[in-house]
């Protein structure tokens, strides 16, 4: 069954992780030895080595699809390797489930949550490890322990709250609390700060410091370079399922990391943009949504410019974009698009008029996961004469279009008939973008267009946006990535508690000014 590919020819070269810098002298806690994993002939992980010392934060760095997730899934017992071992304290581990790993003291916090949404925070924290006596739950004891644990962690969470009612950031905290409660010796954190605010991130970092002091070894996946320098001890770079190199996290530069990760060198990360703004394409006046998360918002976006919406997670910036596309019930205010007032915005009509929206949640709202890349790319453009004639599809044209669009947006490897779910996050994001620009467009609204995608894919998304804007399209860029929104936008509106707190133009478009207005003046 195991197919011979050219990957295995390279196996074994440069894969020695032992000669590395950092917390020298500390004893080796966990080792991944020559781990490989193949999926029906495709090598997701190829002879990978990694060593983790007690009390260090070891960062895994690499593009989406580089094999990081496969590696940590094996270490935490969720996947069985095709070859190789996981070694803890010098003993080879035999694990067939996450529970086996947990019993050995290995705990993991994944990006995809493993919480039961209808249960409470406390019930989730004890899930699988309930305190019970002859089958009867000891609820008050658990409540007490949960309250205490959360307080110790510094997380402001109500143990009785139903998880389904929590924000993404809060769910993330519950996941972390759940993992830490098992008192692990090895803790795996997969992009834990992706949905956290600044303050929450600081709480998490403080926790990481405490765990370090206790001698817990942590494997930490992150795409944020500042973060890596702040809390990491060593960084191991992966590419194409293979070990590339291990660097000292404090001294590694951004260029060094990015080049090592992508295997190619980068010039300036963000493209140089020369905006030539034209007439307003979108103008919003006194907009409020029925749920009250947006109130009295007025802004405009002109042709040929990117306008940013920045603000903390949950500040309502995303809802502004969604409201324009008809995804939020409106309470009051006016939306004008291309000189026409939108009374009852609906995706279908808006797409035909030349507005499109790329949602932030690829899985829930973005893609038809089980369907092919071709079908995903053409989906919102099928109404056009080019793709259908009296309800019948023009499939040859569709195939041609999918191939061309796939090339243009840089989906690699391009397999238009393969299920889109097989692609990495970066490719999925590109497919969503490709779908949005498939029909003639005047305004594109992007909600967190680079969340969870690697630096290489980000650069390609930026290049595509700059190309679109040069052609005179208007872009509303909603992003929690502050450097991104500041660098890519002509103007940035800061959203705070559902209203526009500030508009940053020219020399006021800096991180300092933006952050101040994120939190208000007080």
């Amino acid at each position, binding site marked *: 069954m195991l*197919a011979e590919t050219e990957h295995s020819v390279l196996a074994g070269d440069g894969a020695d992780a032992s000669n590395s810098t950092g917390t020298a002298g500390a004893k080796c806690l966990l080792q991944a030895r020559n781990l490989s994993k193949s999926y029906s002939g495709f090598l997701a992980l190829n002879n990978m080595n990694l060593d983790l010392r007690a009390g260090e934060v070891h960062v895994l760095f690499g593009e989406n699809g580089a094999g990081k997730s496969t590696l940590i899934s094996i270490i935490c017992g969720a996947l069985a390797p095709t070859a190789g071992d996981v070694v803890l304290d010098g003993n080879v581990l035999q694990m067939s489930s996450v529970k086996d790993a947990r019993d050995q003291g290995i705990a993991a916090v994944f990006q995809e949550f493993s919480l039961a949404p209808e249960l409470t925070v406390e019930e989730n924290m004890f899930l699988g490890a309930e305190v019970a006596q002859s089958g009867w739950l000891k609820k008050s004891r658990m409540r007490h322990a949960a309250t205490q644990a959360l307080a110790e962690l510094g997380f402001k969470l109500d143990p009785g709250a139903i998880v389904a009612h929590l924000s993404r950031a809060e769910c993330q905290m519950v996941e972390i609390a759940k993992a830490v409660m098992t008192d692990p010796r090895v803790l795996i954190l997969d992009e834990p700060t992706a949905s956290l605010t600044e303050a929450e991130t600081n709480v998490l970092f403080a926790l990481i410091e405490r765990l370090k002091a206790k001698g817990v070894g942590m494997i930490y996946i992150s795409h944020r370079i500042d973060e890596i320098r702040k809390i990491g001890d060593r960084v191991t770079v992966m590419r194409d399922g293979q070990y590339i190199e291990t660097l000292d996290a404090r001294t590694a530069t951004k260029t060094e990391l990015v080049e090592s990760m992508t295997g190619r060198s980068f010039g300036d990360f963000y493209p140089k943009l020369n905006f030539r703004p034209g007439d307003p394409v979108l103008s919003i006046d006194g907009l409020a949504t029925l749920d009250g998360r947006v109130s009295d918002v007025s802004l405009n976006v002109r042709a040929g410019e990117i306008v940013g919406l920045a603000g903390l997670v949950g500040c309502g910036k995303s809802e502004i974009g969604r409201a324009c596309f008809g995804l939020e019930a409106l309470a009051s205010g006016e939306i004008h698009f291309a000189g026409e007032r939108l009374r009852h915005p609906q995706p*279908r009509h808006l797409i035909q008029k030349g507005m499109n929206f790329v949602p932030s949640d690829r899985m829930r709202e973005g893609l038809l996961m089980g369907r092919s890349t071709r079908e995903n790319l053409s*989906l919102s453009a099928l109404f056009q004469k080019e793709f259908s004639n009296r309800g019948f599809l023009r499939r040859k044209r569709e195939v041609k279009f999918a191939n061309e669009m796939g090339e243009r947006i840089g989906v690699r490897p391009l397999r238009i008939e393969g299920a889109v779910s097989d692609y990495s996050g970066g490719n999925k994001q590109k497919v969503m973008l490709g779908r949005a620009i498939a029909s003639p467009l005047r305004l594109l609204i992007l909600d967190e267009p680079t969340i969870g995608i690697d630096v290489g894919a980000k650069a390609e998304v930026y290049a595509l946006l700059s190309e679109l804007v040069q052609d005179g399209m208007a872009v509303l860029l909603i992003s929690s990535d502050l450097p991104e929104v500041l660098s890519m936008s002509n103007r940035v509106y800061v959203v705070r508690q559902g209203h526009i707190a500030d508009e940053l133009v020219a020399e006021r478009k800096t991180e300092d000014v933006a952050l101040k207005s994120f939190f208000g003046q007080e």
Partner: protein
Amino acid sequence: MTQKTLPQKLGAHLEPVGAIPVIVVLFIIFFGILEPRFLSGDNIFNLSRQSSYLILACLAQFLILLTGGIDLSVGSAISLASVVCATVMKSFPEAEGAAVSLGVLAGIGTGGLVGLANGIGVAYFNVTPFVMTLGSLSMALGLALYISGGYSIAGLPSGFGDVFSYADVGGVPVPIIYAALVIIAVYLLLTWTQAGRYIYAIGSNVQAARLSGIPTKQYLLFAYVAAGLIVGFAAVLMTARTESGEASLGGSDLVLKSVAGCIIGGVALTGGKGFVRNVVLGAFFITLLSNGMNLLRVNSYLQTFIIGAVLVLAIALDQLREKMTGRKTV
């Protein structure tokens, strides 16, 4: 990098085909060895003819499963359509041609109306498909029994039975031809039209479909009505076969068999996945199983048990396959 090995290439070609053709062939050989009469020309003919009705029910079920729903009302919609078809046909005793035409239209239309009701409930009132069709199961059956008074409505024009059941065209029985026409129509709908693509999209991710500008409610309704019309047509063919309208025509096992045929044909219960060809083979397989068991004189109560077991087994094997190939585990 993109060079593929032979097994991979084979796998890629076989994947959409699935295991079902292999299973069908294996069972034909299996029954053929145990009971040589099974392979006689008469029996194969009979088998194809029998399977036409289930193929129609499965295709209707397939359209609904594709949207991520389930249609529990297939059986009782057939009962109702049969009773309405027969009642209308008997209302015009003096003009046979007109009576048959009107009866057939009434039967198909009744199926369409049940589909319309289901579709409105599901698409516009957000009733879950399970509950909606469970309700219409009871409603349609109740109406069928009410209209017929619980008796079979016999004495239909003889031309009706001929044209819709007993005639043949060049030696091929008409039910097979009607089923083939519907198979082609559903295939064209799903593969070559915008509506078909949208049905797949809705089942795969309704929210993504909406954000891509698809009027999801309209197409959901469309799927239910189309399924209803197919059910109505199946009812007409079945009424012609028994030459009477009967409230017991659908029966509860038809729902089970229609779902089983789809599942065995690889249709995902979560929606958005499945092929017409495999559904047809799935339906054929179920009929083949019944037919083979009849020839082998398997107790009929035991047959009911076996069909249920096959359904559960098919789902379990499918889950196992997904686990083994490492798919769908993110």
